[in-house]
């Protein structure tokens, strides 16, 4: 089998740090975030995340994320295909966003044998890890099937837990059915959410954020030994650094701390922290 040159395309929901995107030549299609009557591109220029989270509490209406146009996805995919034998597109879940469909349509001009489209079932760095590991395996093996297998194994061996500082944004978003239900109606809670297969479910209701962070530590340790770890935060860098310290010796090298994008961010709200561990077992 010949060694294939494989390029990757994903969307801005993946929260992949710029240096890693550059290193692996990953094309990132920015999504739109609509708020206060305007549409902003989540590209780190038009929309600066830290600023966005500071404004979020005072926004009159709940921001929404919108898929990029097919014109944008087509351009990104075509560029990637030009200097590669194969393009792997990994996206935000179709359940959550129209991005998957925009990518599908944007890839329609490429011969089907030269492109693979993967619904990651995940958001933020849980999507990001699938792309990064895929790129690493591609560089090593040049084998499309091995790349797709690796992406699936990462998906099976990674977790995404988020601890929320407030229920307010989850309620405003209205996406999470149980948040509107009775639990937490009379007493405030700091929920721990579990994201899996495009579904957001409550894992625990906790009274204080301190205890919620302890729970995140406990949940992360359950996944040890870790191959990789991303710590996400919404306008709470110091909280993320504290969380990393609390994790102690389970933290792998090159752990990433990153501000979460608006897609998940608008639901979990400022102050939130999250962990995205990938267990070493993915390599087996």
């Amino acid at each position, binding site marked *: 089998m010949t060694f294939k040159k494989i390029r990757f395309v994903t969307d801005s929901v993946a929260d992949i740090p710029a240096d890693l995107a550059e290193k692996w030549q990953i094309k990132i299609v920015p999504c739109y975030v609509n708020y206060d009557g305007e549409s902003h591109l989540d590209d780190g220029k038009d929309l600066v995340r830290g600023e966005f989270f500071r404004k979020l509490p005072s926004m009159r209406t709940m921001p929404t994320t919108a898929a990029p146009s097919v014109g944008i996805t087509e351009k990104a995919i075509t560029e990637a295909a030009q200097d590669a034998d194969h393009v792997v597109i990994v996206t935000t879940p179709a359940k959550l966003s129209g991005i998957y469909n925009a990518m599908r349509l944007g890839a329609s001009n490429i011969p089907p044998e030269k492109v693979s489209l993967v619904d990651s079932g995940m958001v933020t760095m849980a999507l990001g890890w699938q792309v990064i590991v895929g790129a690493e395996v591609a560089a090593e093996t040049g084998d499309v099937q091995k790349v797709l297998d690796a992406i699936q194994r990462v998906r099976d061996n990674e977790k995404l837990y988020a601890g929320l500082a407030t229920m307010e944004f989850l309620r405003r978003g209205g996406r999470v059915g149980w948040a509107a239900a*009775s*639990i*937490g*109606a*009379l*007493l*405030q*809670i700091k929920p721990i959410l579990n994201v899996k297969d495009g579904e957001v479910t409550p*894992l*625990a*209701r*906790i*009274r*204080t*954020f*301190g*205890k919620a962070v302890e729970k995140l530590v406990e949940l992360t340790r359950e996944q040890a030994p870790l191959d990789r770890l991303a710590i996400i935060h919404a306008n709470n860098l110091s909280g993320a650094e504290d969380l990393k310290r609390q994790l102690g010796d389970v933290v792998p090298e090159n752990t990433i701390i990153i501000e979460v994008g608006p897609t998940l961010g608008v639901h979990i709200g400022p102050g939130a922290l999250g962990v995205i561990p990938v267990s070493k077992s993915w390599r087996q």
Partner: protein
Amino acid sequence: MIIEVKKQICDGHLYKWLIAAGLAWLEHNHERVNQLNVFPVPDGDTGTNMLLTMKRAYEEIANLNEPHVGIVSEAVARGALMGARGNSGVILSQLLRGFAQRLHGHENFDAYLFSEACKSAVDMAYKAVITPVEGTILTVARLAKDTVVEKATQESSLLELLTLMVNAAYDALQKTPDLLPVLKKAGVVDSGGQGFVFILEGMLRLLRGEVVTMARDSVLANGEHWQDALVPEDEEGYGYDVQFLMYGKDMDVNVVRATIDAMGWSTLVVGDDKLIKVHVHVHDPGKPISYAIGLGVAIDDVVVENMQMQYQGYVEERIGREAGTGADVDGVAVVTVASGDGMRKLFTQDLQAAHVVSGGQTMNPSAEDFLAAIDKIPNKEIILLPNNKNIIMAARQAASLARDNQVRVVPSRSIQQGIAAMFAYVNTRETDVSLDEITQAMTNALNNVISADVTNATRSVEFDGVAVEEGHFIGLLDGTLVAAGDELFEVVGQLLRKANASEKELITLYYGAGQDEAQARALVDYLIHDFGSQEFEVVAGGQPLYPYIISIE
């Protein structure tokens, strides 16, 4: 009824009369027992708890015509167990149970068997308490028993033996303040011990042929038919409660009392020739008021309450409360204890408790109340969450009595601990875990919070260096008195400082009946000066007697 005073044998009939006499004398004196507050908290229910326990015990034999003392004493023990309330009530039920155990199979008892049964009773009572505390009803029972055991070999007359026993019990009661410092500081003898002495005294009075008045309603109405039991006997209903003060000169209290009493019932007229307080229940509230005005005296502080409407309101509220207010849950269900609408709603709606038994500090539910609640819900696996240190024993009793269910107890000592445990419950019950694992998770969660309570002192006392005046606010930290004063906000502030709340994250204020949200918000504004980095949460609890229940975590 003629009692042969030199009786040397007690059969089932006599034992029944002894129990009835003990009950009657306790009933006559139970308010005195209630007033022996060991602690300046409105917890004055020891007498009521013991009375309810004895009533339920007597109810079991009220219609029993049985000469076999083994059978009668067993019935008494069963009734006491079902009706046991509060720590003293539960211990009393264990005394009666141990007593009955030794009499099993005996048609009657003599002095020797009596002493043996007393030994068995005390053994059983001590076993029922995890860490027996001396200076309580336990000590009184034990020392009384010692005398009986010592004298039974020489004294064959049950009357003489009981006389010695009562004297020994009374002496032991006087020693309780030396054994339990908390009593000495408060200047009282132990209330449970006093209740026990009254029961023995009642029995002795019967044997001596002294008057032991028996209240007409001393057989407790069956709890299942409480509505029937509450229907007023009077066709005109419960009528009005009328109270007022009379200011005059040369008034004759006795004449006023006799006149007012002829107008209605539940009459209470006290005072002197210048000031008289009148309290009476009547159908026509105009009558006593007109009478006082007719005497040419001034009246003041007139209170007229429609008891019929209060009664109807109570019935409606209780029906509403008992009708399916708990959460429908699969698998393991929780039965808990709370009072106040807000608290009840919190437990059933937010925290998914299947049933809330009404009760708390002033009204301790019995084992029977727990069993009735368990019967009401379909779940087979049940966790009992008592939320008060005085209710834990009744919950444990219920757990041991439950036949068709698997019942566990999570020993929550406060409402705050109960709420913390319920969070563990809602977090674990959706995952596939066993009853014991859920129980463990809930038990582990009990210490996640510090419990702070604010209430009013019922008597003046100096306690652990804190001077308390009757009516002042007092602050309790995990049950220990740490703050007192006449300003509510200041007491809450002192309490939070003692709890080191500035090192914690979240302070939740559950405001009670008589407070409102605006007052609670004002309290938060006051507290925020000292506790600026803490998060405050204000929740309507609606609990009686406690303006604020506070959890710190």
